[in-house]
């Protein structure tokens, strides 16, 4: 297999507060192969949106990417200039958000907003831009595109507005589409329409996608690989079929049990007792230890590194149950890591060793 | 209300720790902002001076020294004496009591009446709201000071009527503030939930809407004290407020007016006292506004 389109290595994004850093994203690795769909799944507050925003380069003060690399086509997005990132965003990499109407400007027609994107990243003539708008809106299943391009966002229903947002995201024929809960605000029957549409577009256009969601059902139906997040950590990363079939992290297993399915006839809901830890006060060791049925002494010291449970870097788990399996090597950007000491990086390199450069309290 | 106070003992903390908690809470809110902290210190000093006036004042406020009139500041009389030889410092110290009385009476009146009208209008909406608010509009349509003067001259020139007049003038603003707050709180889920538990309207208004409208009431009440001090002083200056020889700051300034060409001190010091008191309440009000209404960390402060 050729080099992945997107390779995230040991990414950490922290938010500075007066009481110490909030570790919203803490030492996460995953890859996205070209033409595939990766689901990032987790409960609210697990850091999945922050992870996606980090990849987008949309982290703002007091947030900061404190460690790690985001390689996109062999370029490291974390070291890229703001201007270069802007050139990528909306062009090669584009986004779709949860609340479609909130991400459209109410003062302009949707046609104007789409031509804006085209004007920023292409040198199409005005006529060609409008041609493209009609083509896009039509492609996204919006009836009579010439007419609807003149409509304002509030004249669209939620599902139609999300189609407009997707049209805007696809305007410049991106390589990579990052979608943050694109169907969560929609009703089931409308969600089905958008899922079908996105899946179809992804296949037709050879798009690569990262799809952030809290819905395991959406992951099962749309994604090729998945990253399960808990308390700022991608605790498991692997192929969707394999992970659903035999999860290699106790949290993934618990989460899969908990999701209510309308096909499930058990009399009660499966639960995970307790609640997620405070991101400002994470326990030493595994983040899931307090709720984990398998927790043992080894879980309480040192954050587990990524173990390669599948024998290669395509299936990773941050759980000591898989100790003995090879660990995913640290990113080669060692000088960078030295300049920016992080407990988590140290952990993964020394396999459970006590952090040395940590000073969060 | 007896039922309410009986209620409180069951699920509330013991009394004493509640008092301590209350004081701590007040201190946290006040000290969250340097404006309110300075203002609070000034106001606290005024209260202290008012309470201990007999101890602090070097002379009887009405003791005349006819052989030592209109004296400039000196060691014996730090602020000088007035036209009948009374010690200005002592009179200003005793004048603090009037200032505090004005604050208490005006704020109590505008709060009790204004809050009740605002709550009722905001809770019942519709015709009740219309009636109350249009009635208040009539009050607002007259210039406030003119209205106060009409009230005082109609009911008799004395200190009580002056304070009541100013209090009445301030009612509409308080009512409007509470009404708009009640209108929005009424839509909150917890008020819907209170209705859902079958509670009567009095309980919903007093226990569920009012406690959540307190911040704007406190802010407005505090700032209004500053305005009330100025307005009562103005009434007194015009001879419609507190009457000489009572040592109110406004009346003192009025009495000193005739001698301003002889010596400025009898008018300077009372005016200064008014200015400081107004500044104190204004700063406190501004600081509280920041903390209670716009503060990002209001919840942190309060918790």
């Amino acid at each position, binding site marked *: 297999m050729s080099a992945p389109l997107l390779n995230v290595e040991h990414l950490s994004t922290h938010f500075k507060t007066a009481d110490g850093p909030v570790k919203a994203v803490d030492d996460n690795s995953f890859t996205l192969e070209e033409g595939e769909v990766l689901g990032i799944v987790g*409960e*609210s*507050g697990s850091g999945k949106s922050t992870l996606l925003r980090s990849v987008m380069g949309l982290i703002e003060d007091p947030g900061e990417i404190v460690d790690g690399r985001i390689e996109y086509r062999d370029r490291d997005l974390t070291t890229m200039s703001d201007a270069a990132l802007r050139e990528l965003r909306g062009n090669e990499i584009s986004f779709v958000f949860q609340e479609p109407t909130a991400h459209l400007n109410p003062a302009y027609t949707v046609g104007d907003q789409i031509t804006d994107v085209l004007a920023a990243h292409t040198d199409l003539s005005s006529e060609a831009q409008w041609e493209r708008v009609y083509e896009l809106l039509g492609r996204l299943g919006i009836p009579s595109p010439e007419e609807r391009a003149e409509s304002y966002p509030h004249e669209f*229903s939620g*599902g139609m507005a999300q189609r407009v947002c997707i049209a805007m995201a696809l305007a410049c024929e991106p390589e990579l589409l990052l979608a943050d809960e694109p169907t969560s605000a929609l*009703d*089931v*029957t*409308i*969600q*089905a*329409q958008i899922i*079908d549409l996105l899946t179809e577009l992804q296949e037709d256009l050879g798009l690569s996608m990262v799809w952030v969601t*809290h*819905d*395991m*059902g959406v*992951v*099962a*139906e749309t994604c090729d690989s998945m990253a399960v997040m808990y308390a700022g950590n991608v605790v498991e990363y692997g192929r969707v079929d394999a992970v*659903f079939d035999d999860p290699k992290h106790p949290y993934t297993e*618990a*989460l*899969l049990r*908990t*999701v*209510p*399915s*309308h*096909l*499930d006839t*058990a009399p*009660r*809901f*499966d639960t*995970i*007792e307790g*609640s997620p830890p405070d991101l400002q006060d994470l326990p030493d060791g595994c983040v899931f230890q307090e709720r984990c049925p398998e927790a043992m002494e080894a879980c309480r010291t040192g954050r587990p590194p990524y173990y390669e449970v599948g024998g290669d870097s395509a299936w990773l788990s941050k759980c000591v149950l898989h100790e003995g399996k090879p660990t995913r090597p640290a990113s080669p950007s060692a000088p960078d890591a030295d300049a920016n000491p992080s407990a988590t990086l140290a952990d993964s390199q020394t396999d459970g060793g006590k952090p040395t450069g940590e000073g969060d309290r | 209300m007896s039922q309410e106070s*009986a*209620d409180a003992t*069951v*699920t*509330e903390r013991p009394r004493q720790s509640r008092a301590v908690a209350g004081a701590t809470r007040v201190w946290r809110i006040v000290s969250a902002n340097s404006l309110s902290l300075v203002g609070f210190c000034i106001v606290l000093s005024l209260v202290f001076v008012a309470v201990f006036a007999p101890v602090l004042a070097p002379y009887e406020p009405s003791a005349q020294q006819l052989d030592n009139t209109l004296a400039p500041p000196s060691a014996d009389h730090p602020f000088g004496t007035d036209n009948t030889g009374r010690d200005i410092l002592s009179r200003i110290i005793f004048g603090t009591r009037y200032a505090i009385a004005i604050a208490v009476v005006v704020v109590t009146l505008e709060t009790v009446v204004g809050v009740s009208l605002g709550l009722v209008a905001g809770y019942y909406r519709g015709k009740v709201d219309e009636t109350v608010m249009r009635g208040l509009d009539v009050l607002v349509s007259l210039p406030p000071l003119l209205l106060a003067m009409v009230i005082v001259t109609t009911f008799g020139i004395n200190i009580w009527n002056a304070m009541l007049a100013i209090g009445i003038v301030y009612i509409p603003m308080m009512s409007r503030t509470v009404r708009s707050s009640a209108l929005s709180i009424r839509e*909150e*889920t*917890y*008020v*819907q*939930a*209170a209705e*859902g*538990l*079958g*509670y*009567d309207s009095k*309980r919903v208004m007093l*226990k*569920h809407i009012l*406690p*959540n409208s307190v911040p704007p009431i406190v802010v407005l009440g505090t700032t209004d004290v500053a305005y009330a001090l100025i307005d009562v002083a103005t009434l007194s200056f015009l001879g419609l407020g507190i009457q000489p020889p009572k040592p109110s700051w406004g009346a003192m300034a009025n009495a000193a007016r005739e001698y301003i060409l002889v010596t400025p001190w009898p008018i300077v010091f009372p005016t200064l006292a008014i200015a400081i008191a107004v500044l104190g309440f204004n700063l406190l009000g501004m600081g509280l506004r920041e903390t209670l209404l716009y503060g990002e960390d209001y919840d942190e402060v309060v918790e």
Partner: protein
Amino acid sequence: MTLLDVDGLKKHFTVDSGFLSGLLGETRTLKAVDGIDFSVDAGEAFTLVGESGCGKSTAILSALRHQQPTAGKVRFKGQDIEMYSKRALRGEAQLIYQDQQDTLNPKMSVGEAIAEAIRFHDVVPPEEVDARVDDLLERVGISPAEKYQEPSAFSGGQKQRIAIARALAVEPSLLVADEPVSGLDVSVQAQILNRLMDLQEEFGLGLVYVTHNLGIARKISDTIGVMYLGRIVEYGDVDDIFEDPQHPYTQALLSANPVPDPAVDRDRIVLEGNMPDPIDVDDRGCPFVPRCPEATAECETAEMGLKPFEGDRGHLVDCIHR
């Protein structure tokens, strides 16, 4: 015993359609709830399922007189609900709200909020109120030591548990829950819903649950009503409907719901278009016609109404093709 019996309930709103049409005397009617029937027995859990805007929340709010219905008869414990005083009705039927963040008065300790409800409805003698508050908090999994805290000290899930404790405090016979766990994480949802089901069974309460989440509906209900555009289009035992849905809308809804299992390969029915606004819905014919894959000319004019499916009085479908 039948607790709640709703018959032909309608809730219509008049829509302001602008100045000119106002002058011309034209008014438009939004039929949020357009003639629904259902009943709930003691100890039974009934769920209204539907997408946003189908009228499911309005239906229960007007059934229990939180809103005044336009038409219809509602009986509570066999008696016309109009005969109950507000206080008596609220003591019998308690509502749990969707919005966990704001369901408790932020200026009142959670213990006091529960105690207030107990005292107001004279549930126990004054000296026992305190013990009852502790007991209720414990039942929903909140430590009684935390009762002096104000709501801001609790998470969304904890606030919803406290709200449930407060609803139970008045010892109602019917509990009505409007999407009480939407917005909460699945692991927290599961804890609360299990607790709710335990308490419902323990006290033999009737439960009316409103949700768009089919996974939750499946577990929590005995019977369900599937709502579309202000009407119940299918009604019956939850397992019957989930395993063998009859109405084309129910079929589409169930098939569109993502299943958290990549091994399940399903043929999804993806409906075209949106559910229209329930404004000026024609009284004649089936409101699902514009999106229905099985619609025929006959559907546009047919007399609609729930009818037993294959003679089963426990499974009702509002479709002329069944």
